[in-house]
C-alpha cells in the first residue's frame, strides 16, 4: 500500500473541501472495498479523508418515503423497522451481498461506490481501460463469464457488483450529494451509475469531491409483492452471476405497477423497462412472467463465455416474479 495522509473530517463541509482541493484524495468510510483495492495497487490515493464521524447515519421517514443516511451501515439499514416493513426488497438485496462482517463495516454511500470485481481490473499486470484509461480491455478477449450482456462498449465489459444498488434502481431511489460549493443536488438512481462508453474509468456521475449525504426512497406500494433473487456460484458470499429485483403493485387481480432491475449483467444496475411494460395491466400469471422475461433479455448481447446469462436471466426473472407474488 502506498503512503497516504490520513485526515479526520469534522463535518461534511470540511470533508468535501479536503477532497475537492486534492486530486489524489478520497473519502474513506467502511473501507472494505477501498483498502482492498489499495493493497492491490489498483487505487493509490495520496490522502484519505475519514468521514465516519460525520452525522449522516439517520434512517427516518421523510416526505412519505424514507431517507437513509450515506453513513448508516448496511446491516443497520437492512434491519431497520422502516426498511423491513416498507422496503423489504432493499433489506433482502443488502442481505444478499457480502458477509455479515462486511455488511457491518460497509456504509450505504460506500456500497454505491464499490468498484467492479472484474478480475482484469483487479490485476494490475493486465490491460484495463477502467484502471488505466487507454490501455485496452483484457476481458473482451479473455475469460468473460462474469461480464456484461447489456450496455457494454468496446472499451469495457465490466459489471457493477452491488446488490443494494439493484434494489435501489427498482425502487426509483434518489441520491443526494453535496459539492464543493456547499450546495446539494439530487441524482435519480438510474442516472447515478454510468454505462462504460468511452470513459469506463468513470463508474458514476459524481464529480471529484462530491459527497453522498443520503439516499431518498420514495413512497412505495411494492412492499407486499417484491423479491430479490440472487444467482451465484456458491450458496452465499459470492457476487451475482445474475440477480433480479422484482416489485409489483397488484390491484383487482391486475398488475398496476411493475419494476424489474437486474444485477450482474451491466456496468450499472439494469432496469428492464421492456419487461415492466409487458407486465403492466396484465394478470400475475406464469405466462405473463415468461413474456416479460423474454422482453427483458431481447436486447442482450452476450460475449464468448457468458451466453448462459440469457437463459439464466429469463429463469431468474420468472422465479423472482413468482416469489414476489407468493407463488413459489
Amino acid at each position: 500500500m502506498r503512503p497516504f495522509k490520513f485526515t479526520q473530517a469534522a463535518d461534511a463541509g470540511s470533508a468535501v473541501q479536503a477532497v475537492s482541493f486534492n486530486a489524489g484524495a478520497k473519502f474513506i468510510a467502511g473501507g472494505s472495498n477501498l483498502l482492498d483495492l489499495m493493497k492491490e495497487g489498483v487505487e493509490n490515493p495520496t490522502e484519505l479523508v475519514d468521514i465516519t464521524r460525520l452525522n449522516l447515519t439517520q434512517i427516518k421517514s421523510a416526505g412519505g418515503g424514507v431517507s437513509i443516511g450515506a453513513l448508516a451501515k448496511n446491516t443497520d439499514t437492512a434491519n431497520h423497522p422502516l426498511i423491513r416493513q416498507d422496503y423489504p426488497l432493499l433489506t433482502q438485496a443488502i442481505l444478499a451481498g457480502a458477509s455479515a462482517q462486511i455488511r457491518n463495516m460497509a456504509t450505504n454511500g460506500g456500497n454505491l461506490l464499490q468498484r467492479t470485481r472484474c478480475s482484469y481490473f483487479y490485476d494490475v499486470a493486465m490491460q484495463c481501460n477502467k484502471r488505466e484509461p487507454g490501455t485496452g480491455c483484457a476481458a473482451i478477449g479473455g475469460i468473460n463469464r462474469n461480464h456484461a450482456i447489456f450496455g457494454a462498449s468496446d472499451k469495457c465489459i465490466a459489471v457493477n457488483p452491488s446488490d443494494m444498488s439493484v434494489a435501489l434502481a427498482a425502487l426509483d431511489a434518489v441520491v443526494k450529494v453535496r459539492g464543493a460549493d456547499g450546495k446539494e443536488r439530487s441524482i435519480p438512481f438510474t442516472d447515478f451509475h454510468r454505462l462504460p462508453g468511452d470513459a469506463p474509468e468513470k463508474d458514476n456521475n459524481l464529480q471529484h469531491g462530491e459527497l453522498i449525504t443520503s439516499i431518498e426512497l420514495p413512497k412505495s406500494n411494492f412492499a407486499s409483492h417484491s423479491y430479490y433473487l440472487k444467482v451465484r456460484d456458491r450458496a452465499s458470499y459470492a457476487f451475482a452471476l445474475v440477480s433480479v429485483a422484482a416489485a409489483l403493485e397488484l390491484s383487482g387481480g391486475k398488475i398496476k405497477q411493475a419494476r424489474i432491475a437486474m444485477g450482474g449483467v451491466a456496468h450499472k444496475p439494469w432496469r428492464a423497462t421492456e419487461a415492466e411494460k409487458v407486465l403492466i395491466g396484465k394478470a400475475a400469471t406464469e405466462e405473463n412472467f415468461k413474456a416479460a422475461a423474454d422482453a427483458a433479455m431481447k436486447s442482450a448481447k452476450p460475449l464468448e463465455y457468458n451466453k448462459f446469462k440469457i437463459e439464466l436471466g429469463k429463469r431468474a426473472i420468472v422465479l423472482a416474479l413468482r416469489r414476489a407474488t407468493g407463488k413459489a
Partner: protein
Amino acid sequence: MAFEENDVALDADQQMTADEEALLDELGIFGESRRKFLGQLGGVGLGALVLQVLAEEKALAFSDSETAYVAPAVENPVTVSFTVNGAKKSLELDSRMTLLDALRERLGLTGSKKGCDHGQCGACTVIIDGRRVLACLTLTAQCEAKSVTTIEGIAKGTDLHAIQTAFIKHDAFQCGFCTPGQICSAVALMQEAKNGEASYLTANVRQKTGALQLSDDEIRERMSGNLCRCGAYPNIVAAIREAHTGKATDPMAISQMEVHDATV
C-alpha cells in the same frame, strides 16, 4: 567464521559461534537434525548463511546503533487510543497500518489470523463495539475510541465462552487457523440472533420477530464469511447449534452427522 572445505558436521557443531547457534535455534533445528543439517551444508559453510541473514537484518533495520529496537519507517504517523479486550491502548503508527497488523505486530495479540488479507476468508474477524468485522480491512487510524474484542478476550479468565466449549466438544476445527475468526464470528452471530436480525434466508423480513431460533441452513448462511479450508463445516455448525440452542448433543451420534444437501 567460514569453515574449511573438509570440516565434518560434528566438528562444525562444536565450532559454532553464538550467532550461528541462535540462527539454528530460530530455524528449529536441534540435536540429530542439527548435525545432519550441518553435514549437508558441507562446503558452503554455515558462516556464509549467517552472514547473509545478518546482512539482511541490518538492511531492513535502521542504522541507529544506540537503540535496541528500531521500528520500520513510519510514514504519516497517526496516534490512536482505543480499548482492546478491556485494556486501554494508545499507539502511534503508520496511517496504512490495518487493525490486524496493529493487533499482531504492535500489541502481540496473534490470535487473530492473517488468512487472505483481502476480506475473503474471515480469519481476522474481531468484534468492534459489539459488531463482528474484518480486521484486515479496518484501518487502525479509524479505531479511535472504539472497543475491540479479539479471540484473546472472548473467555472470561479461565471460563470459556459457550461457543469455545462447544467448538472443543464438537471438534470444530482441524488445523485451527480459521478458528479464532470462526469463534469471534459465532459469538457475534449469537447476539444477532437474539436481536432478531434478518438474513437472506429469512422467509418474511416484514414479520416482526424477537429472538430467533436458527436452523442449520441459517447458521451456514450467517457464517458464510468464515471459510475453513480443512472443511470442518459440519462440526462448526454442530458446535454453533449447541451453543445457540443450549441443547447438548452427542458429537459422535450418527443422527447429528450431516449429509450435505447440494440443493441448499
